């Protein structure tokens, strides 16, 4: 009988065993389902805060009944509270900078006359967007509020053309945070973050648990080979990863109204590489860690740069070069491109080869490190 480096039968043996163990491990299963839920809810609330009655300053260079009725309509809406009416432009800017108001509404001189002549006067809303979650709803409500008020109250005086489409140029200017983070951007990213966190953790614990319980000794005394054990421990969790993806996508759709613009099958297929890469990290960590505590510490050591440097939290363009390099090495960086691309913009496979290759290379390197570190003896 010849010796095999890889036997499908032994690999299947490990897979079956892991499946049974995962199924019976209620705590871990609960975590796998619970973590995505909790994270989405936390992030969801943070993003979804829908604050109302935000302090607003008004700079009114026109002072017509038109502008006044827009201002009072704003005050009556639930999003704005006119704190400082009729201030100068300079004063308003100072107020915004000091954080005393969240918005400035500016009506230029001759606003009404220009409007009636159909000349698209500018209506400017400046927002303090340093906390993007705060202003989102107010901003979008403003865009419909002004035209509606004018249409409702001044229909008879408006020229015929104007009723259909108001000759109004509503500008929104976000100050202090030009990179707008919206739930639309965060939730797809969260898919990658949650997978990174749970996948690496769970597998890192699984092999160190075998060492601590002594079952590793039994396993090592059988003919099973390192690659069979490592891959056997990865496969069952792939499935768990997909359950998580499903869960997150459903919540993204149901709660945040985010739909996958591009191809869902493509997204699922490419997620395979990402999940596998993270599982490989976990297995490799567990070949190095001596106990579960060390395994957890090492997983955190992998997790932190992933969320900080991948572009999930901060735009990578603003990072120093070394941080960008580290980011490039991490699978989450590439997966973010894929999920944001497919979910938000409908990116096609052809534009995603670079991140795919990056994840495959990462996976192979990590598995090789794991194989090199896998000890077939107890010492």
């Amino acid at each position, binding site marked *: 009988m010849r*010796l095999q480096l890889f036997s499908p039968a*032994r690999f299947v043996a490990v897979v079956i*065993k892991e499946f049974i163990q995962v199924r019976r491990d209620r705590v871990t299963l609960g975590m796998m389902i619970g973590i995505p839920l909790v994270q989405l809810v936390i992030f969801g609330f943070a993003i979804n805060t829908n604050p109302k009655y935000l302090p607003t300053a008004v700079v009114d260079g026109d002072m017509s009944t038109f502008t006044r009725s827009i201002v009072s309509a704003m005050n009556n809406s639930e999003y704005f509270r006119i704190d400082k009416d009729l201030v100068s432009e300079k004063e308003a800017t100072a107020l915004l900078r000091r954080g005393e108001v969240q918005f400035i509404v500016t009506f230029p001189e001759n606003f009404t006359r220009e409007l009636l002549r159909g000349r698209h006067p500018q209506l400017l809303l400046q927002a303090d967007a340093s906390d993007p979650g705060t202003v989102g709803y107010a901003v979008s409500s403003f865009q419909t509020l002004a035209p509606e008020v004018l249409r409702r109250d001044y229909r008879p005086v408006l020229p015929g053309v104007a009723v259909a489409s108001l000759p109004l140029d509503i500008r929104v200017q976000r100050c202090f945070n030009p990179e707008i983070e919206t739930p639309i951007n965060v939730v797809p990213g969260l898919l990658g973050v949650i997978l990174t966190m749970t996948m690496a953790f769970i597998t890192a614990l699984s092999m160190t648990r075998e060492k601590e319980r*002594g079952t590793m*000794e039994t396993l090592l005394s*059988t003919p099973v080979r390192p690659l069979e054990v490592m891959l056997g421990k990865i496969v069952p969790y792939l499935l768990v990863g997909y359950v998580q993806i499903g869960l997150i996508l459903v919540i993204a759709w149901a709660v945040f109204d985010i739909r996958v613009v591009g191809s869902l099958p493509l997204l699922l297929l490419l997620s395979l590489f990402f999940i596998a890469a993270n599982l490989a990290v976990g297995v490799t960590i567990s070949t190095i860690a001596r106990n579960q505590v060390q395994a957890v510490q090492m997983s955190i050591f992998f997790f932190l740069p992933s969320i900080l440097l991948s572009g999930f939290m901060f735009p990578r363009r603003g990072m120093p070069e070394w941080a960008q390099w580290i980011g490039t090495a991490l699978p989450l960086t590439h997966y973010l491109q894929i999920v944001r691309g497919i979910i938000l913009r409908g990116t096609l496979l052809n534009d995603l080869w670079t991140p795919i290759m990056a994840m495959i290379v990462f996976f192979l390197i990590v598995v090789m490190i794991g194989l090199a570190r896998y000890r077939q003896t*107890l010492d």
Partner: protein
Amino acid sequence: MKPVVTASSPAVDARNVTKSFDGRVVVNRVSIQVRRGEIFGFLGPNGSGKTTFIRILCGLLRPDHAEGTCLGFDLLHRRDEIKRRIGYMTQKYSLYEDLTVEENLQLMARLYRLDRRRERVDAMIERMNFGDRRRQLSGAMSGGWKQRLALASCLLHDPELLLLDEPTAGVDPAARRDFWDELHNLTASGITALVSTHYMDEAERCHRLAYLAYGNLLTQGTLHEVVAASGLSTWTVQGGNLSAFAVELRGLPGIEQVVPFGESVHVTGSDRAALTAAVQPFFSRPGLEWRETAANLEDVFIYLSQQRARDNFQ
């Protein structure tokens, strides 16, 4: 490449096995031979290196030095072939507690790539009388049943050599007896077994044995060979206040060892004439009953350990 194996070639022929942990020698140049089809007892107090030696035999630890063969395969370089042919039962229960009896056996059957898996597993469950326990989580069973499962799972692939590390520790006497009967049945059918234990009564159920103390092999052979090789003579005395009497005997010239055994005291020395001369004066004491007997295993082991300790001390 099949190794040349004849019925008489030893199952284990390990020489000069040495292993140290962090600079401390735990197994010191130990050589043992285990013949095919025998039960070889591996005795010694806790911490004497039994587990370490067995782990080296099944390739779980890398020795600092070792020569020789296991089942005809080179100990150091043919670990995979050896692994396939041995059944190793760990000292601490190390099957999966969250798998049932049947699932544990199925796992083993798959890992050894056995044919007729279901059939073999069913047969093993039948043979070990698991009955309804086949669907019980192994972690939920009592010590005796865990031990049976551990034995079952290392027998499943029909190994040529069993390495059993303190298989009966913490098992009740009836189950221990059953276990030894089973072991004798197995070796009768050609399997070789190396069993570590620290129960002296179990030593007497082994065909041959070796005694290890603090990493050193002190003796090996059949029970009779071991006793004979020690060259010890023993007088057994019964009756009277033996504990006080034992104190009185200790240290007399010719008497090297006085060991109380419940109802009797064993008085032992390496020079029969000197020993007899030393005990003779007490023959006339009323209430005492003297008999010259062979030293038993325990006398020998205690003697050898102390001699070794003395040698090390000097």
